[in-house]
C-alpha cells in the first residue's frame, strides 16, 4: 500500500496550476490563506495592541518540534516520549557554545567562528542528531514499546542531568545570555534580532517552518520516506522486501531529533535563557499531543495541532484565568476564584491523547492512508473473527470495534 499516494498525479508532474485536481487546488488555496495570515500577523499584533508576538514565536517553535516528532511517530511509527530531551540538547548546545557565562567559552575551547549564531545553530542541529543516534542505536532493535519507555527515561534524565551538572550547565541558574543572529541589511534596511521587538525572530521562525515543510514533504515521498511507511505498517513485510529495519528507524530518529536541535537553538536564543525546567516531561507530551491531535503522519494536520495545543498552553491559560477568577468572585465560589487554568494542562493534554485514540485515532486531519491504518474496524472480517473468539459471555455488548 505504501507509496501509492506518493506517486505524483500525472497531470501535476507536467502541467501548471490550473490542471490540478480540485482538492489539490483547494489545498493550495488554504495554504496561501494561512501563509498570508501568518505573514501579516506581526502587523496586526502591533496595530491591535495584542502584544502576543512572543507567544506566537513559541507556537512557531513548537510547530517545528511537532513536525520533527511527526517524522518519528507519524512516518516511522516509533513512539518517542522524550522528545523534549533533544530540544534541551539543542538549546544547551548553543548556550554552551556561545554564552560568555559558559565554561567552554571562558576556557577558550570554542573557536570564535563557532560562537556565531548560525554556526552554533548548525552544530546544535548536528549534536541533537548524534544524540538521537546514540539513544536509538541500542534500543531501536528492540520492540517498539521498549523504545517508548527508554525515551521516556531519557526525557526524564536529560533535564535532571542539566540541572545537577551545575559546574557545566549553571544548574538552576540556567545559561544566559546566548548569541543572537548578527544584524544584516536587506536593501539598506537593518534586520536585527532584539528582545524588545521579536518580529524578526517570528519571521525567521516562519522561514524555518517553510524550509522544514519542504524538506519533510519531500522526505515523505522519497525512498526513505516510503521505507518508513512500510516499516510502520508491517515490519516483517518491509524487511522481507529488503528494507533495513534498524537503519531506516535510526534515520527517522536522528532526523526527528535534528529538527528538535534546530528548534531548541532558536528558542533559547530568542528568549535568551536556557533552564532545565523548560524541558520537563510535560513538554514532550505537549508535542506528542500536537502530533496526535492534528493527525499522525499528516504534516499540515500536525501544524494545526501544534497551533491549537500551544495556543492553549501559552495564550488561553493566560487570557482566560483572570476572567474565570472574576467569575468565581461573582459566584462566590472559592474553587473557581482561586483556579489557575495553567493547572489544567495535564488533564487537557492527557484527554487530548486518550480521546483522540478512542474516538478519532487518525487525528482531526488524518492522512487518508493513516486513517485506514488507525481505524481497523473498517477491516470487518478481522474484527468479527477476534470478536466472536474473545467474547464468551457478553454477547449483547457492542462489538469491540463498534463505537456508538
Amino acid at each position: 500500500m505504501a507509496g501509492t499516494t506518493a506517486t505524483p498525479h500525472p497531470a501535476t508532474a507536467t502541467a501548471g496550476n490550473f490542471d490540478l485536481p480540485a482538492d489539490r487546488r483547494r489545498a493550495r488555496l488554504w495554504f496561501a490563506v494561512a501563509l498570508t495570515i501568518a505573514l501579516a500577523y506581526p502587523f496586526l499584533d502591533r496595530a491591535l495592541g495584542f502584544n502576543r508576538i512572543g507567544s506566537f514565536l513559541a507556537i512557531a517553535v513548537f510547530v517545528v518540534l511537532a513536525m520533527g516528532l511527526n517524522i518519528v511517530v507519524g512516518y516511522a511509527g516509533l513512539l518517542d516520549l522524550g522528545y523534549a530531551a533533544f530540544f534541551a540538547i539543542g538549546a544547551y548546545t548553543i548556550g554552551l557554545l556561545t554564552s560568555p557565562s559558559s565554561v567552554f567559552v571562558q576556557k577558550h575551547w570554542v573557536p570564535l567562528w563557532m560562537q556565531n549564531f548560525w554556526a552554533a545553530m548548525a552544530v546544535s542541529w548536528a549534536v541533537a542528531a548524534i544524540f538521537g543516534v546514540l539513544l536509538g542505536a541500542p534500543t531501536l532493535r528492540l520492540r517498539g514499546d521498549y523504545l517508548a519507555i527508554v525515551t521516556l527515561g531519557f526525557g526524564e534524565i536529560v533535564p535532571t542531568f542539566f540541572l545537577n551538572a551545575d559546574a557545566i550547565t549553571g544548574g538552576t541558574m540556567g545559561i544566559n545570555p546566548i548569541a543572537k543572529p548578527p544584524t544584516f541589511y536587506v536593501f539598506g534596511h537593518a534586520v536585527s534580532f532584539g528582545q524588545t521587538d521579536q518580529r524578526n525572530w517570528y519571521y525567521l521562525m516562519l522561514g524555518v517552518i517553510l524550509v522544514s515543510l519542504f524538506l519533510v514533504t519531500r522526505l515523505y515521498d522519497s525512498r526513505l520516506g516510503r521505507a518508513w511507511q512500510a516499516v510502520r505498517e508491517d515490519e516483517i513485510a518491509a524487511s522481507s522486501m529488503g528494507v533495513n529495519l534498524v537503519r531506516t528507524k535510526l534515520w527517522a530518529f536522528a532526523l526527528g531529533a535534528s529538527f528538535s536541535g534546530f528548534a531548541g537553538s532558536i528558542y533559547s536564543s530568542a528568549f535568551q535563557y536556557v533552564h532545565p525546567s523548560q524541558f520537563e516531561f510535560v513538554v514532550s507530551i505537549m508535542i506528542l499531543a500536537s502530533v496526535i491531535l492534528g493527525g499522525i503522519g499528516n504534516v499540515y494536520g500536525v501544524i494545526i495541532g501544534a497551533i491549537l495545543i500551544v495556543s492553549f498552553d501559552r495564550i488561553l491559560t493566560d487570557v482566560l484565568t483572570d476572567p474565570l477568577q472574576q467569575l468565581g468572585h461573582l459566584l462566590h465560589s472559592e474553587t473557581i476564584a482561586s483556579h489557575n487554568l495553567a493547572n489544567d494542562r495535564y488533564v487537557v493534554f492527557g484527554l487530548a491523547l486518550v480521546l483522540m485514540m478512542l474516538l478519532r485515532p487518525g487525528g482531526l486531519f488524518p492522512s487518508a492512508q493513516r486513517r485506514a491504518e488507525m481505524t481497523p474496524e473498517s477491516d470487518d472480517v478481522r474484527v468479527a473473527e477476534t470478536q466472536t473468539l474473545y467474547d464468551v459471555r457478553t454477547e449483547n455488548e457492542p462489538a469491540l470495534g463498534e463505537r456508538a
Partner: protein
Amino acid sequence: MEFNANLFVQFLINGVTNGMLIALVALGYTLVYGIVELINFAHGEVFMMGALFAFTIIGMFTIGPDTPWFAIVAISLLALAAAMLFSGALNWAIDRVVYRRLRNAPRLAPLIAAIGLSFILQGIGIYWIGSNNLRPPNLIANNIRSINLLNEWFGLDTRIRLRPLDLIVVGITIPLLVWLSWFVGRTKTGKAMRATAQDREAAALMGIDVNRTIAIAFLLGGLLAGAAAMVTMYYTNTASFRMGFRYGLFAFTAAVLGGIGNLTGAVVGGLLIGIVWQMSDGFVQAYIPWWGAQWTPVAIFGVLVLVMVFKPGGLLGEFTPDKV
C-alpha cells in the same frame, strides 16, 4: 579508601525494604504486560492515586499522642484496604473504559492512550492535593519512627539502624507476595491468567473469558500498587502528584531487569533496583564525593539501557522478539 561495612549493611537494609515496595509496583507492570503485552504507563499514577486516597482516608481521623495503639492499627489497616481497593478499582476501570476498546487497534494506540491516562491522573492528583509535596497525616508517632530495633530489642551495640517501619514494610509485602503466588499458581483464575498469557486465542478457544481474565490482571496489579502506595507514603513521609512518575519508571526498570512477564523476575528485579537506588542515594557518596541522590535516576536509567542492550529478556525471562 576503606570499605565501610556498617554503611554498606545499612543501605542494604534500606535497599531491601525499598526494593520490596518497588517489587509490588513492578508486579503490576509484569502482570499486565505478560497478558496483553502493553506497558501500562498509567500504573505509576494508579500507585499515586492509591497514596492520595489513603492520605484522605487517614486525614478524616484526628490522631493525637493519646490515641490508643489499637485505634491506630485499625485506622492503618482500614486505610491500607481502602488504598488497595481504590487503586485496584481504578486500574480495572482504566482497562474497561480505555484499553479494552483499543485491543484490536494498532500497537501505538494503547501506548499513546496509556501515556495520556497517566497525564490525566497526574492532573487529577493536582486538583486533589495541589502541586506541592505534602506530609501525610501523622499516623506513626515520631518516637516510634526513630526506634532502632537492633538496639532496643536485640540489645546489639551497633550503629546500623533497623526501624519498625522496615519491619512493617516486610510484614505487609511478604504476605501479599505469598498470596499473589498462590493466586496465580493454584487457583482456577490464576490458571486462566497463565493460559491467556501464553496464547490468547487458544485460551479463548478453551472457553476462557479473555476479557475477564485481563480485567483481573489489571485489578490485581492495582491492588498491589495501592498497598505499596500507602506504605511508601509513610516510608518516605511525603505525598505528591509526582510520586507515581519516577516510582513507576523505577518499577518498570525492575520488571525489565527481572524479565518482563515473569512474576519472580519482578520481585528479584525490584529488590535489585531497590538496592541500587539506596546505594546510589547514600553509600556511593562515601567514595565519590560529587555523587548523590540527585544522580539516582541517572543510575537507574543506566541499568535500564544496559539490560536492554545486553540482556533484553531480563535476568529470568526469555527474550521474545515481535510476534508475527
